[in-house]
């Protein structure tokens, strides 16, 4: 009996290592691993590489009031400065990472394939949820948002719009 347990464990660890290796390269096999890994236990180890994140993402939104006028763009507080204690305690990193992951998921869709159906994707709905949870004027009827990327190494550069939403009823 013991020998079967040992063999099963060795096979499991071996399979896990092979799956991890396969997942690192952008190949069709990596997608197969990802599709079958419902718990996300197969890691992706390519931290900050090959392209290190060089920009900050900002979520801005504005509302259309009942009279048809728009409010000014407001930035959501997602890139606020870290506290001096973030080396020990940094819950906000998960919020920033979730937004960045969702934007990355939407940005990974080829432009030629982007259509209105993107609005029912989980990534889009997650961003919409976040934006719609922000406070609004009492006469606000619709809300739209943009995700913009800025580069601190080039402060004069115009922010790049990564995603512009439709106008959503509130």
């Amino acid at each position, binding site marked *: 009996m013991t020998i079967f347990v040992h063999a099963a464990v060795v096979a499991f660890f071996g399979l*896990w290592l092979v799956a991890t290796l396969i997942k690192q390269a952008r190949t069709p096999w990596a997608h197969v691993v990802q599709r079958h890994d419902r718990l996300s236990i197969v890691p992706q180890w390519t*931290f*900050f590489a*090959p392209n290190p994140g060089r920009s900050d993402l900002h979520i801005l939104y504005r509302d259309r009031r009942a009279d048809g006028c728009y409010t000014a763009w407001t930035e959501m507080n997602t890139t606020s400065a870290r506290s001096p204690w973030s080396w020990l305690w940094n819950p906000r990193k998960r919020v920033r*990472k979730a937004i960045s992951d969702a934007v990355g998921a939407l940005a990974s869709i080829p432009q030629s394939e982007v259509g209105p159906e993107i609005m029912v994707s989980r990534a889009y709905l997650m961003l919409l949820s976040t934006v719609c949870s922000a406070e609004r004027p009492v006469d606000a009827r619709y809300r739209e948002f943009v995700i913009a990327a800025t580069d*601190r190494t080039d402060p004069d550069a115009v922010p790049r719009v990564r995603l512009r939403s439709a106008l959503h009823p509130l």
Partner: protein
Amino acid sequence: MTSAAANETYRAVILIWSVGAIISTLELLSLRAHFAPGRLFAWTLVRRRLARGEHFRSLLDALLARGFTGLLVTRLVAVVALALTPKVSALLNVSFAVVLVTTLLLLLRFEWGKDGSDQMSTVVLIAIYIGFGPISDDFLQKASLAFISAQTCLAYGVAGVAKLVSPIWRSGSALALILDTSTYGSAGAAAALRQHDGVGRILTRSVVAAEVAFGLGLVFLLPAPLAWTLLAWGVAFHVATAVLMGLNTFLWAFVSTYPAIIYIHSLLWT
């Protein structure tokens, strides 16, 4: 190497791992408002991905929506019990199982927002459970510690090779660019690297070199003093990324694997 040495290694792994698990669970508790309906981590969005069958859906609703705070508190208590229970006992087995189940449920709960520290924590937990949980024996202990060591080397190695093929990393400018962001940066460190770009280049390339060295398995091939130097670099690297980039839980997740590496190194060199 005796079973006692493997057990001491297990204690060291689990103690360091637990610090990270306690911090990340408390961080999730502090983000409770973001899990409410209509917020960033709203359950209804995740449920669309997982929903399969009425019974399974009801169970997940109970655990990951209505009972989510309870799940986090349960995990916290179980992690503390796991860290404080030194000897094989019923309490240890129960805490181990609860930590494992709650960790897997948390993996289901998040589609986005997980990072490399969550991944390494999961690798360590599952492997250590197989090696030192209810079915533990000498072979499984060694196999689990070897697996943790292999995943650690793979993690650094893949990160190193991915950097090595990147012109930005090879040019030595990547660290300065990352540190110049608000998300992962540090204004003071970025300014210092701008003033001394030679230092930035050396640091960037040293990260690539050390990660590739781990990937090549040098931490096992080199004799003890040199291998420990590589591990000391790893600790310094994770402390630096915690302080400068706010990657606080990476430190505990990755350094918790080092006792396993030391154990396997000792096995190979004796």
